[in-house]
């Protein structure tokens, strides 16, 4: 029982990271019908920028904000400079383009910041919280991770559901042509969508760095599990991304804890295939038929 609690809490923390990654992928998918394979590498790069600022004497929170802002700008630049020109090309091209970007960023990071494995500080204690005499395997930093992911999701929900800007962004993603006729700057909305998604990704990178340690490929597995989480939940549904990402965290934690950590990804594969066999468009797919 105690083991189950440990694994559940562990799954919750990791799952919230995967959920953030999945959410970033879903936002970009909804805006431009692109699976951004460079999402993890972009987050890796902004986390290196945070470390760079820390080493130049910036306080933690300033570095934190710098990384998020850089993520925002990087997302906008990538959409405007690289993705926009291949919009009309075959859909596989943009996949290869983001793969190319992934390689470029993962090669550039060790050139600029050094390739060795670095530790990344955390804002709060990473030792488990004490409840009386009992030490819970859940640290203040885990709590911070969970809360900040939840807060960011709430903010995004507010933006999309309650503001004029959010409505325009949804309209631009839903039907570009009609939105353009209605006077919405569709291109600008898509750029903003990429920028926001990349900010969410940057947050995930910052939050997972203390436990995974920082090296050029440290976000690769987060990207893969975030992507499987997004697929699991349904690529068109932000709540699906959150549910899918969290399920991924729990599933990996339980499989790793009960069957051995070397079966983690095989377990993830089996779960993903099993779910997709029953629901080929993810758990929360609301459109039953395919567009022909």
């Amino acid at each position: 029982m105690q083991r189950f609690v440990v694994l559940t809490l562990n799954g919750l923390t990791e799952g919230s990271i995967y959920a953030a990654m999945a959410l970033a992928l879903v936002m970009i998918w909804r805006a431009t019908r692109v699976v951004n394979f460079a999402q993890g590498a972009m987050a890796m790069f902004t986390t290196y920028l945070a470390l760079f600022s820390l080493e130049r004497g910036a306080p933690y929170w300033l570095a934190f904000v710098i990384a998020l802002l850089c993520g925002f700008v990087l997302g906008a630049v990538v959409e405007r400079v690289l993705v926009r020109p291949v919009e009309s090309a075959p859909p596989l091209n943009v996949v290869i383009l983001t793969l190319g970007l992934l390689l470029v960023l993962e090669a550039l990071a060790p050139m600029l910041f050094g390739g060795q494995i670095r530790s990344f500080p955390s804002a709060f204690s990473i030792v488990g919280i004490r409840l009386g005499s009992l030490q819970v395997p859940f640290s203040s930093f885990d709590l911070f991770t969970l809360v900040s992911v939840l807060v960011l999701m709430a903010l995004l929900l507010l933006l999309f559901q309650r503001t004029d800007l959010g409505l325009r962004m949804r309209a631009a993603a839903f039907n570009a042509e009609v939105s353009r006729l209605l006077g919405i700057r569709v291109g600008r909305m898509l750029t903003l969508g990429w920028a926001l998604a990349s900010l969410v990704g940057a947050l995930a990178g910052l939050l997972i760095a203390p436990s995974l340690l920082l090296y050029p490929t440290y976000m690769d597995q987060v990207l893969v599990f975030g992507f499987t989480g997004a697929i699991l939940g349904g690529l068109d549904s932000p709540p699906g991304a959150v549910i899918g990402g969290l399920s991924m965290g729990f599933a990996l934690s339980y499989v790793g804890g009960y069957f051995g950590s070397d079966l983690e990804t095989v377990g993830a594969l089996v779960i993903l295939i099993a779910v997709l066999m029953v629901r080929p468009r993810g758990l929360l797919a609301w459109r039953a038929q395919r567009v022909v």
Partner: protein
Amino acid sequence: MPAVVKGWRLLLTPTLSRHLGLALVAFILLLLLSSQIGAYDDYTLAAVAIFVIATAGLNLLTGVNGQLSLGHGALMAVGAYSTSLLLRGHDLPLILVLLLSLAGASLVGAVFGVAAARLRGPYLAGATLALAVGLPQIATRYSHVFGGEEGLTVPPPAAPSWLGADFPPERWMAWIAIAVALVTLVLLGNLLQSSVGRSFKAVRDHEAAAALAGINVARTQVVAFVVSSACAGLAGSLFAYWSGLTAPAGFGVALSLQLISAIVIGGLGSLSGAVWGSIVLVFVPNFTSGMASSLNLPSSVGNNLPLLIYGAVLVVAMLVVPYGIDGGLRRLLALARARWAGAATNHKGVVDWDDPAGS
């Protein structure tokens, strides 16, 4: 003997005889080339041929049938591990090992293909990516069978004695790989020209229309997956002979992503695209790592320069030649023809990609 007569007539059909003739000419030219170059270049040539087999199969699945696979490296791993296990303690003839490895990968491909036929676009990409991540882990988990992280060693194929005792083993490896690659290309070329190949394309272009035309969409997709897996298994088997070692690190996600980037760079949906892509896949890293080591750069820059250039090549290629090398060449050819024929008004640079010659 009507069966024999029919067989001869089949051989005389333009498609088959053209493909066989081309393959024969290519075989002779490549053997001559291979005899002129050194052992290391023979080794590289074999690598290109092996990747041609894998990418041709992948291009059939992704380019021709429209099913995106990010997990073909895992199917190559199935072929490579089949070969390594078959050769452990036994000395089996090469052709038998190749066929059994092909069968093993086809079997895995059939199982996965049935699942894949229900999935589309990014969902299929995600499932196949999970396959690429998950499958190599089985090798580390059951290390008593698969040798764990260290992997299994494979003896190199022995050159026949009539070639002489000092015949370089790299050259023999290159000859085998070239022969298998050409046989694969001829078979795939004929398949693409047949009704099966046309149904692959019909399913890719419009599923509903294909179904209305009487094509069983799901079955066609499973067949494409099996054929493609068979190619991957064959390539994996040769890869095991070529590298002499089968270990999970060699079959990670990176391999699968290299294969898919090769066919997009080479040209989606054509066998020549697979050949171009394999050449890029093997020669660009070879060239850039040679360049990086000759430039005397600090190690943090020099070690990562090849990766940086490969990534940049992918990005720039997608921006500059969206239809790959094959598409770009066809376009150039079509433009040149249009100019020579003085019928430029007909085209004005607009090329029908499926029939760029406009015939």
